[in-house]
């Protein structure tokens, strides 16, 4: 019996192929699952970041530092502290930028519906919601040991006119995010000292109002 099994290589190949088939077709799906199972999922994520921007045709990298807060159902607070203070707040309906005192920029979703799409993507990126990203982006990547890497490219050609690619990498936490826009600017954000919580503090809640 055993002999005949070895003796008929054709049959063995078919068997292998049959076994391999589900793995092939679901490799992408599994990758997402893998990453999701590794990532810590939490309603509130706080941490620090270092951002390095490489603008197209400009040699000097622009480095900045700050704190961030990603809260499910609220949005994102992105506080740049060095080299200057600038706070960007992303909520469902708007993008608001202040220098801590006065408003620098405000984009309203009711006026510009793209705000919603952009905010949705950024929230997914910063909170590590790879499943949500997979709905609008094609992706590939790998997960080895504790590490994983994913690269997303927009499926929609109009979105591609804004974002060229998103690259996420990490272990339990997201370690880095790289965003490349259509103009060729690359923003690399490295995260540090992430902490997780179930709820926002009262003070933090106020900042989202």
């Amino acid at each position: 019996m055993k002999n005949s099994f070895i003796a008929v290589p054709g049959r063995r190949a078919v068997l292998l192929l049959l076994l391999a088939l589900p793995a092939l077709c679901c490799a992408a799906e599994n990758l997402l699952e893998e990453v999701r199972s590794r990532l810590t999922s939490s309603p509130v994520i706080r941490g620090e970041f270092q951002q390095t921007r490489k603008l197209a045709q400009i040699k000097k990298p622009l480095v900045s530092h700050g704190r961030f807060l990603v809260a499910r159902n609220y949005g994102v607070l992105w506080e740049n502290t060095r080299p200057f203070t600038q706070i960007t707040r992303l909520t469902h309906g708007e993008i608001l930028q202040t220098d801590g005192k006065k408003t620098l920029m405000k984009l309203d979703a009711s006026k510009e519906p793209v705000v919603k799409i952009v905010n949705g993507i950024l929230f997914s990126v910063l909170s590590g919601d790879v499943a949500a990203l997979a709905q609008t982006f094609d992706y590939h990547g790998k997960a080895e040991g504790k590490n994983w890497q994913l690269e997303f490219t927009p499926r929609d050609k109009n979105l591609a006119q804004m974002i060229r690619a998103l690259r996420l990498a990490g272990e339990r936490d997201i370690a880095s995010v790289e965003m490349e826009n259509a103009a060729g600017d690359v923003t690399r954000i490295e995260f540090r000292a992430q902490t997780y919580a179930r709820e926002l503090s009262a003070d933090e809640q106020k900042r989202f109002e």
Partner: protein
Amino acid sequence: MESHVRRHRLLACFWLLLLLLAALFLFFERAAWSARVDADLLALLPEDERHPALKMAQKAISAQGERQLALLVSAPDASRARQAARMLRASLADSALTEQGGAAGIADDAAAGGAWLPADFYFPYRQGLMSAADREWLLFATPEEARERALALAYAPFASGSVSWLDDPFGFFGNWLQSLAEATPLRPSGGELMLERDGRFHAALLYALPGSAFDAQLQEALMARLDAARQMLQQEFPEARLLRAGVALHAAAATRQAREEMRLIGMGSLLACFLLVGLVFQSARALKLVLLSLVSGALVAFLAVFSLFARVHLLTLVFGASLIGVAVDYAILVFAQHLGNTEPVWERFRRLLPTLCMVLLAPALAYLALALTPFPGLKQMAIFAVCGIFGAWMSVVCFYPYLLPQTLPLPRNAHWMGRLLDHWPRWQNSGKAWGLMFVLAVFILGGLLQLRANDDIRSLFAGDPGLMAEQGEVLRVLQLPSPAQMFLLSAESAEQLLQREENLIEQLRPLVAAGKIDGFEATSRWLPSQARQKENRAGQEKLAASRKALAREMELAKDWAEKTDAPLLTPEAGLSLPMRQAAALWLGETHPGKYASMVLLKGLREKETAAALAQFTGEGISWIDQTRDISDLMQRYRRLLTQTLLAACLLLPLLLYPFFRREVWRLFAPVLLAGLTTLAVMGYLDVPVQMLSILALLLTLGMGVDYAIFLAARQTHAHTLLATTLAATLTLASFGLLALSATPALRALGLTATLGVTLSWLLTPVFRRGAGNQR
């Protein structure tokens, strides 16, 4: 006598020849003329002579709007809405419709919104392109603030877009591109043009028709496809809603409606005609003769409108169908004179001719009044009516003497009629009669005091309420500008015109900020004037110091901060873009050295705002409120027709005085009372008076006087009463059927005429001459 007959024979032969030619022409050209019948809503509207450019504006709007078809599929969930839209697209895939925007090519289609326009096109001109907000910011910005703004943009983590920081350090160009996107709330999402509103996700499918929206065949095919698609949608996506908008849909509904009405009124009138004529005269020959007269009328009417007008409106035919009841009167009058009469036919005809002439004149004049209005549709109806009744009358006059039987048997009911007439109340100069008259006067006065007028343009359209609601919803959701109100601008050059637009827009901005209007659409938004571009560049010169500081900080090449002379965007280059919004509003050089364009408004809701906007007019800027203009025009013509009516009431008695002398009051008292009572009843019933109800009163006057002349001609003979009764009944049948029309104006005409004719028919015998004072 002999020469009379010879001349008459010549006329009859000539008329016969004419009719035959008309019949042949209409028969062989039937395919051509039936293709010229349409239900174009705009055909009913008058051309505005005050603004020659307005005609072009209207043409431009209708030319691009007419062929468009917008479908909105909405669902509470975005992906379901998208799937439903895909199914809808698939089900319409093999129709002749061409999709615009959507999956077919958003990037190169302006309908999809400015943000998706090729930023590449505007890139070389970017220094002169600034949004209104940035222009204002630049006025007060310090060099330090400008530097901070540029740095913030450089460091901003989420900067997205296709323009690099180096090319647009202050973000002016990006913001300007962004401001273009306000043209539409639709954004591409997952391959569809989507928008979210009130918790529902709408996917828009924008189509262009392959031909005219008024092509009946196209309409039918389109409606069938859409109905099938809607049914399929309902099965597969029960939660989805489909909204449709497009001129073709309304035209299709109007065509369907008008055809049904034409059939109803035409067949109803004809049936009533044959039934009554057959019953009363009990002669197959009489029926044939009535048919001859009606067919001649129809031939002449059709020939006239098809040779005078390029397009014939279906409503003309609907209205024309109601003429059957009027045109048959002449035949009936002649038949009535033949009842039990043994005089030679020619003798009788000679005596009848003056009466026949008079009864042709009154309604023909009334219909001609309609031709005085500047409404092309109404003119057409007038021509159709006058030619129709003239044709019917001519055949009666030309052919009947040869074709009539020597005598028609006196029907039994004629005696009964005579007896009825004996018992009919008769006006006597008694206290009781005056008392009744006083009561009637009080009733009339009470009604007249409650009468109100309505000159709404909508009375000319029989819009399907469901479709109208859908259309309104689509316009609201897609935030499309209304073409009914607009600014029309003119200038001596393209540059001057753009500058005028910009000045006007500066005035409009506070209204947008205050929420009075939602926005505006103008060519200059896509193509700023050269003066504006130069101004923007000059404004940016104060940023030279900031640029130098930035160049140092970012370690850039020295020449980056140097001023470069980029080209200005010229109107020629700007208009070469395939941008539908901009091109549609730009009328260009309408006359040598005269340029014109439109500025359209979005979300104009209140009359007060419209009144405020009307104040923005200035040199080369006029405010066009087509709804109001047409209503004003209808009001003007309602008044003109009222004056005509009053003049007719005064002149007709004078004209008829030589024939009737002091008895002339008997002709007019009943019809005047009938007219006034009709108005009073309308007042009590709260039916507003409009242009066409005044016309109906003119018709009532014409026909009422006819009846009185009939009666007077044969001194209230029973058969004459029979003839009047028959004529009135048939007229009533036609107008009564017209009162069922879905077109409010025709309904008003039908209602008023029905009421007026009934009353004058009832009242005429009241003022008959008594047995004692017969002439």
